[in-house]
């Protein structure tokens, strides 16, 4: 069948085998049920001399959505956790996990090396789309402290009139250190991250996180070189590959702050593990 439900506990994620992606979120304990689509895309930045898109100035010149590869969607099920492996393309891989006893979804992403053989710098985002009516308002943390309200407006006031070309709206993603959330009349959708990323919500019910980027132009604001770091292994250099996680949860209105605060701390201070071996009663 096309619809695959994943999750050993109250939380079920619904995947479409045909579209090979997430399409729904159901929590049988809190009775939350929401259409949730998750996808990847990348922005290409403006390259005109007057003001190129770069480290600080984000002037997207178009967005390219990435359809999951024809590779299979692989689901692993077990008593403790279920996993869904998706290969988005040759440089983006995602593992979605739902743990028994936990009511959030864990998304582990592996992005890179971002290809630049086409001569185009790319800023990679993952988008979470719902039908929530969020009136262009979203909330992002400020250095892990309070969540500040943000309202997305079409044009930034600071741009001198006439400098705006139709394609490139100045749209500065916020720096997210702990997470971001949106809410409507009865639900809150929260996303927590395990490192600083860019975050924005430019359409109702939609969140996007900028996970990784590789740029080929400088924006003339002080870095004075393109963000195009490489790593060399045995004299073969390639762009950076990043591995990270973010966590998604939808709660009834007013019940999400407790999870954001406590789980946010647990992301920042995970269990510390130490290993040793025991032979008989001798610990070594």
């Amino acid at each position: 069948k096309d619809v695959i439900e994943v999750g050993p506990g109250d939380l079920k994620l619904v995947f479409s085998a045909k579209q090979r992606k997430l399409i729904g979120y159901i929590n049988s304990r809190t009775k939350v049920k929401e259409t949730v689509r998750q996808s990847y895309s990348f922005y290409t930045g403006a390259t005109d001399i007057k003001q190129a898109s770069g480290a600080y100035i984000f002037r997207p010149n178009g967005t390219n959505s990435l359809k999951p590869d024809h590779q299979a969607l692989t689901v692993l099920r077990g008593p403790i956790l279920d996993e869904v492996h998706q290969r988005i393309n040759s440089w983006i891989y995602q593992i979605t996990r739902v743990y028994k006893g936990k009511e959030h979804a864990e998304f582990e992403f592996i992005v890179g090396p971002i290809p630049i053989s086409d001569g185009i710098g790319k800023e990679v985002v993952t988008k979470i789309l719902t039908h929530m009516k969020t009136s262009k308002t979203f909330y992002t943390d400020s250095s892990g402290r309070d969540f500040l309200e943000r309202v997305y407006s079409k044009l930034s006031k600071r741009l001198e009139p006439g400098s705006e070309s139709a394609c490139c709206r100045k749209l500065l993603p916020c720096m997210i250190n702990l997470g971001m959330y949106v809410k409507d009349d009865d639900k809150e959708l929260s996303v927590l991250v395990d490192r600083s990323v860019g975050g924005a919500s430019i359409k109702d019910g939609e969140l996007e996180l900028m996970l990784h980027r590789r740029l080929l132009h400088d924006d003339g604001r002080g870095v004075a070189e393109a963000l195009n770091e490489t790593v060399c292994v045995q004299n073969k250099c390639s762009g950076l590959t990043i591995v990270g996680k973010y966590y998604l949860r939808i709660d009834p209105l007013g019940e999400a702050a407790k999870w954001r605060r406590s789980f946010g701390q647990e992301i920042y201070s995970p269990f510390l593990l130490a290993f040793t071996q025991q032979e008989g009663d001798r610990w070594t």
Partner: protein
Amino acid sequence: RPNTDYLADALALAQHHDAVSGTSKQHVANDYAKRLSIGYEEAAKVVETSLASITRSSSKTDSGKKCLLLNISYCPSSEVDLSNGKNLVVVVYNPLGWKREDIIRIPARSEMNSTVMYSFISTVHWLLSLLLLSYKPFVCSPILGCLVIDGNVIVKDHRGNEIESQLVPLLNASLAIRNYYSMAYLGKFPSVTPKYWLAFSASAPPLGLNTYFISSGKQKAIAAPSKNQVVYSSKEKQ
């Protein structure tokens, strides 16, 4: 000295938005990393000497081995071959002020590098051991040494009660990443590649410890707690 001042300074510097978001020249990014690495090295000495004095062990070597990987369970010194009754002991420390339960995932591995040989041999041995009805997670053959078939391993808590665990196959992408990190940090490909994650639920009191024992298990009449995987792969044509 040695003390952790240098690490503190390096961490303080790394709070700058350029360090947090990577919006800096390459040499500045390298400088942040270098300062953190120097600070780490010195802090590691502090840990070593203090562990040695706490455990009153004379030689420094007892105080454990250093592991530079982000995930220390990948380091060779944290690998234990569970044959001959050895246990892997996992100590879990909870740095937060409230009781927590979380899923621990550590890599389990097979002795063989080549999958073909591995799958061929294991099939033969698997059939043999099933015939002998004495399922063993290890089979040692004169030619190839011991194969960890990654079968039933048992996880017990500190009271000796068996807790539910699960073996999750480690699919390609994760392996690629694991090799990548080994190369990036150790400059060499890992000696063997893990084939599974062993997952189990661990809890720890506020600011407290807990200990878990992982040992090779015996097949039980009832389905073992770490059920084998049901793998579903949607194929395009279907």
